[in-house]
């Protein structure tokens, strides 16, 4: 019946009355929409634009007849009709594209069926292959192909082709490419650059890579082009540590050690990353790196670290000696001296270990002395105290603690009398209390300085004494402290006295 419709249209065109007859015929079979569909489809198979037009016009013709008067439909009216216009619209588009490629200058005589089979993508590919870039772009735009698959893809191909044109200079091409591609979404400049590189235009490739916003894409190609310094700085610029690692590892295998180190030296970020890697994987390389930089301080630290990883004493001492040398080179006298002390301490510890069988090697000076005192080797502890210029205070604390731990109260008392205690006598009181020896503690209370008297009395639980001391000193906060420790039931009188004293203290 499409045939009839076609015929009818043909007749209508000639303004013949017969049309109405034809139309009625179709109507009777109530297959109008089918007829319209067929018309549209038939148009698709027609090569001659004029015939296409006629067939497509049928579509409207029928519509108009339905309303029994004639008019030219506008798009909106078209859309408001019952017959779905999509098919019609897409057919028009397809035909327009097909007609364009069928043009003799292009010469791709495709049938509509072929076109549907091979899809737009392939058609664009073919156009691209024939270097018909402008047409391909027009087609993409006309068919509203998404940019990624459409315009951008064509532009990329164009650019790839462009960069192979040997007669033009790098600058001209780079500029042309960047101007054309500026607004296109999803362009991978690195692919274009790869093409340029493959056709032997490294400089152009580098220029093009400048446009690539993603460093992750730039770096591999730069490496391939052996532009490692650039690759490294790009990787660092990207802030992507992983990328930097990739480049650093690549360089490590590619360059000789000297060049590699030199390159890292100019890139602090890469260097610190590589150091980090070496710390875990290659200790010796780390040393070489410090050596190259004449970083004696770090070298010293490196040896110190190495020394306590080693179990053997000789090795440890040797490593420490290296550390000392480095520290002196770094003009760090403090570290050098401390390290020398450590060597002396190690030797001392070893000697004593052999003589006395005490486990000592590796202890800090403080711990060594604690151990010595706890096993009663006071002489040796004292030797350390003198040799290593241990502050008096520390020594007193140490000895105090050690003696109390052994509950050697007699020795403690003697020690307390050797000279005036540099740490005062409150610690004596406290240490005795800690070991639950109130009797011993009381011995030292009288020796405590006036400022600490209250505390000392309180420590031994002597409320009376504490109150006495506090009142004597007329110190409000101390009186309050004592008050807070009094219990209302047993220390009633004391509290009264304290309160009175407090009142006068406040007045003052």
């Amino acid at each position, binding site marked *: 019946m499409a045939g009839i419709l076609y015929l009818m249209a043909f007749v209508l065109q000639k303004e013949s009355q017969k049309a109405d007859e034809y139309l009625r015929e179709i109507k009777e079979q109530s297959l109008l929409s089918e007829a319209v569909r067929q018309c549209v489809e038939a148009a698709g198979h027609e090569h001659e634009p004029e015939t296409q037009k006629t067939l497509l016009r049928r579509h409207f013709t029928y519509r108009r007849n339905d309303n029994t008067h004639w008019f030219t439909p506008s798009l909106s009216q078209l859309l408001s009709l019952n017959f779905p216009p999509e098919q019609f619209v897409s057919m028009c588009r397809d035909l327009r594209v097909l007609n364009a490629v069928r043009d003799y200058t292009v010469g791709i005589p495709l049938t509509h069926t072929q076109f549907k089979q091979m899809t737009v993508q392939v058609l664009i590919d073919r156009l691209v292959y024939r270097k018909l870039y402008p047409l391909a772009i027009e087609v993409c735009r006309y068919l509203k192909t998404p940019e990624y698959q459409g315009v951008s893809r064509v532009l990329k191909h164009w650019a790839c082709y462009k960069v192979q044109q040997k007669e033009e200079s790098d600058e001209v091409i780079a500029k042309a490419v960047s101007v054309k591609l500026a607004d296109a979404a999803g362009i991978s400049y690195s692919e274009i650059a790869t093409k340029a590189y493959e056709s032997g235009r490294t400089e152009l490739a580098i220029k093009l890579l400048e446009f690539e*916003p*993603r460093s992750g894409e730039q770096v591999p190609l730069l490496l391939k082009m052996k532009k490692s310094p650039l690759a490294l700085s790009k990787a660092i610029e990207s*802030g*992507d*540590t*992983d*990328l930097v*690692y*990739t480049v650093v*590892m690549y360089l490590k295998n590619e360059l000789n050690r000297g060049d590699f180190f030199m390159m890292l030296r100019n890139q*602090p*970020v890469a260097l*610190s*990353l590589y*150091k*980090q*890697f070496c710390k875990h*994987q290659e200790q010796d390389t780390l040393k070489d790196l410090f050596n190259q930089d004449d970083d004696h*301080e770090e070298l010293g*630290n490196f040896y*110190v*670290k190495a020394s*306590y990883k080693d179990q053997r004493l000789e090795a440890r001492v040797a490593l420490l000696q290296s550390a000392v040398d480095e520290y002196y080179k770094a003009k760090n006298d*403090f*570290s050098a001296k*401390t*390290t020398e*002390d*450590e060597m002396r301490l190690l030797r001392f510890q070893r000697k004593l270990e052999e003589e006395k069988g005490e486990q000592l090697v590796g*202890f*800090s*000076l*403080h*711990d060594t002395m604690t151990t010595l005192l706890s096993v009663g080797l006071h002489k040796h502890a004292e030797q350390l105290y003198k040799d*290593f210029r*241990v*502050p008096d*205070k*520390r020594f007193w*604390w140490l000895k105090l*603690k050690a003696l109390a731990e052994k509950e050697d109260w007699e020795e403690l008392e003697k020690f307390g009398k050797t000279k005036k205690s540099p*740490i005062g006598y409150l610690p004596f009181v406290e240490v005795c209390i800690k070991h639950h020896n109130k009797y011993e503690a009381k011995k030292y209370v009288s020796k405590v300085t006036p400022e600490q008297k209250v505390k000392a009395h309180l420590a031994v639980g002597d409320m009376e004494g504490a109150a006495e001391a506090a009142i004597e000193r007329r110190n409000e906060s101390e009186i309050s402290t004592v008050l807070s420790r009094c219990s209302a039931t047993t220390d009633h009188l004391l509290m009264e006295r304290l309160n009175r004293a407090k009142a006068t203290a406040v007045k003052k």
Partner: protein
Amino acid sequence: MAHTEWKDAPGLPDFSLLKRLARDQLIFLLEQLPGKKDLFIDADLMSPLDRIANVTILKQHEVDKLYKVELKPIVNLVNADKVAGRFRRYKIIFTPQKFYACETVLEEQGVYGDVTTDEWNFYILPLDDDILSLELPEFFRDNFLEGDQRWVTTAGSALRLLQSVYGSFSKVYGIGRCAKMVYESWRELMEDGEQRTRQPEFAKVFLVDRDVDFVTPLCSQVVYEGLVDDLFRIKCGSVEFGPDVTSSDKSIKVMLNSQDKVFSEIRNEHFSNVFGFLSQKAKNLQTAYDKRRGMDIQQMKAFVADELKGLKQEHRLLSLHIGASESMMKKKTKQDFQELLKTEHSLLEGFEIRECITYIEEHINRQVSMIDSLRLLCLLSITENGLLSKDYRSLKAQYLQSYGIEHLLTFANLRQLGLLEEQQAGETLTVMESKVGKLVNDKTVGKLTDAFSSLAKKSNFRALSKRLALVPKSGEEYDLRVPRDMAYVFSGAYIPLSCKLIEQVLERDGWTGMEEVTRMLNGQEFAVTEARSKTDAQRIVLVMFLGGCTFSEISALRFLGKERGCRFIVVTTAITNSSRLLEALLDNSA
């Protein structure tokens, strides 16, 4: 500080979604290896994994046995199997992301071809309604000490994840080098991916580097939650209370979050208030129990059905927290702790520095605590802008005598981070002095020396503290029951610098007017407007701490939120405190 007080504050987004996402991805990865499989888990990942997918879930997906991974065992396992001629399939799942270096290591160990690898993008673990953690304790050392920026992208990815789930942000503020890099990495990730326009659930983001404020994490914490962390170490939102707390011979693991009704009421309180609060609570509980008396059968039935379980639960929690605070009181009300706090406060105020140094010296000499001594030293150095050469050397020498020469390296690390320094300016100035000195007479030299030393002593912390009013005037009474500002988290002695910065920037909607402050903090500040939006989300602020944040800071921000009618969500690379911070910098082992 119950939720009801924030009636006008906006509600928080539902972060359990993040857990679900991570769990689903893990399950997907497991399902990709059909059949029975053994799972080797890195020790550090154990607790976070447990929060995401427990053993039952793992078993459901045919995980046969679980092993804890110590050092490099996968490689050893593979190689051992190879020698034994056993055939198994191996897959290494890296989380949160795989690094190129991982492949290099596998290659070097000769197992690259034997294993397949995958990534589990488990970026964020919600620890509580308002705390999200990346669980990257290594972030601090790697980034700030070693200059290894590998985690920057991880932090960026975490932000992007938040953005894709909860909508985009309208404004981003930040300070610090790392913050800037994270922001840039995040921007880059955003450009790569598809844009989603939806109503945001939070609108403002504040990024802050840990090294902007070292003072705060170095102070002793006195807010309940912080104190629990300092004393018992909260791990992944749960804490193990030892026998001294539980008053039995067993340790108990407790989850500490807003689900725990007792804890959520005391977590932000100064610990001096906690005990009173708990005993009041205990009394209330008793009254509730006492209701039973005089009930008839029907009422009793209802009581048992409705209330008893809740009461029992509350009872259990209450007795735990009472136990914990008792044990705290025992440790913390001791003379030592009081003196420690006093020293800290003096340092913060810049008051009686000589006494402080003497105290620290004694602290070192008596070997009280390796970490605490170090902490005080750092606090001294930062607040005083470095130690005088003489003090530095003597204190360092004494420290080494106490704890061993290995700490030379620790000191080197601390110096590198600017945590513990010898006043360098002094040296260069001395050179200058002697040069100038040759030109003028003796008397003028003396004057010059004074002038120079005052120049050298100029301390940034002091200036900052003055400018931002971090340290309230001493002598004023501070009622810890009714805190008037964020200083309450440090007994009214100090407002955390980090939190003060956040407050100021949010108030000014940028850094304008704070140029001097940012200059003293070494700049690198930024404020970017991404989009405009006028919703409730404006009042939810995401604060990201790069390098860790302390519970005290979280408490301070909660307080600030309450004051300003907004809510803060803390995203941190890990929860930190003074011990964790300093332990990360020790170099006495490994």
